[in-house]
């Protein structure tokens, strides 16, 4: 759960304005929550303090499929309509020590499920997944499907570190 002391910040829905802009424009109307066909968007709980009532995505529970319906419905411009490739939610980070494909088991679930396959995640000559950070928008599908325990791919939300 997101909290005040969570320095990494929240994974915002696709097309979110930068953090300060989002916090100043979001009126917590929950239209994005309702329009999301995957129930991926949730609203910050009270423990999220400033981000209370503002939209975020927990990719482990339900990642963003980049259908881009939420920015269309946002009335205040807290989410701005953009192309899926420009969603800029965050970036996937792959931990090669944990990843099955780097440890003798062919898996590549992340590559198979990535909505921006062959752009954001590619397979190298050894059929091991590589995240292309410039193309990855951080939708979180890879983290959602990763079978390793603990997960070997996680999403770093854009903005704060």
């Amino acid at each position, binding site marked *: 759960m997101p909290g005040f002391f969570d320095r990494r910040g929240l994974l915002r829905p696709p097309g979110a304005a930068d953090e*300060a802009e989002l916090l*100043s424009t979001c*009126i917590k*109307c929950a*239209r994005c929550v309702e329009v999301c066909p995957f129930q991926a968007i949730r609203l910050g709980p009270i423990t999220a303090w400033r981000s209370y*009532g503002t939209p975020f995505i927990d990719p482990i529970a339900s990642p963003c499929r980049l259908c881009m319906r939420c920015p269309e419905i946002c*009335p*205040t*411009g807290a989410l701005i309509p953009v192309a899926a490739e420009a969603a800029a939610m965050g970036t996937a980070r792959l931990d090669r020590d944990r990843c099955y494909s780097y440890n003798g088991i062919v898996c590549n679930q992340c590559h198979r499920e990535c909505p921006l396959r062959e752009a954001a995640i590619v397979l190298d000559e050894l059929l091991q997944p590589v995240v292309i950070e410039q193309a990855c928008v951080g939708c979180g599908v890879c983290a959602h499907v990763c079978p390793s325990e603990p997960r070997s791919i996680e999403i770093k939300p854009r903005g704060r570190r």
Partner: protein
Amino acid sequence: MSRAAITRRASQLGILGLLLAMPILGAAKIEFLRGTLCSLGTDSLYLSCPLGVLQTTLASRSFDPGLWASAAAFLLLAFIAGRVFCSHLCPQGLLSELNDRLRRIGRRRRGGPEARDASEAGPGALARVAGLTLAALERRRERPDSPRRRRVGQRLLYGTLALGLLASFAIGVPIFCYVCPIGILSRALVEATTFGQLGGELAVIFVILIVELTAARRGWCKYICPVGALYGICSTKHTRHLERDAEACSGCRTCERECSMGNSPIQEAVGRTCTNCGDCIETCPEGALALVQLRRKRQ
């Protein structure tokens, strides 16, 4: 109940039903209206809360004409029909009213101020004292606000609004949206039907209801709520308002007791806290009260 009263309840409950139905219909892939009372409508056509819009305009220091157009409908409604948002749409208003009814049921059990004979308060002496105290409190609470209380109340109401807007501008977030019971209740309905869970922010609602039940009758709506305050500002002399027919009025003061917002139609002391709910019209035995659009000419 009169037709107006039935319409009002139907409207209040209809909004709750709509908020509950939207996520369910959405899950069944039926495209319908989306949103909450903060912003409600289809993808391109929607209504937005004017206070939310005003706050984000100040917080982000940018003017969005489309957004303001979506807020215009509620402002126009307030300009024409008064604070009907409070009496017909606001879910907190509905809870607040039912809360007030709860108090009234308590009064009836104790015999009520009408039958305030000590023998009816209960068998034991302690129960009698308690009953009398409660009855006295009830009577005090059913009085309309005194001119002083009204004045202080108005200052508090518009002070809260001004402070909230100033803080939104200074801090850069729509500050009132964080505690707005209308938003909290709307979102709770959406989140409950979508995810099956409720958040801790509902405590705000309970605190408001408890204070309104014990300390200040409809205190939030009367003295604090900036949404209501904003709608109150919209009313002018052309706005639909309550008028009393002095010749028909018998001076029984039933309307005073009925008004949960502390107004006194009989003393012609109906301020901007009046939500045009029509409860006083309903309760008047002489039919001396009416909502009128244009001010009657006085002789």
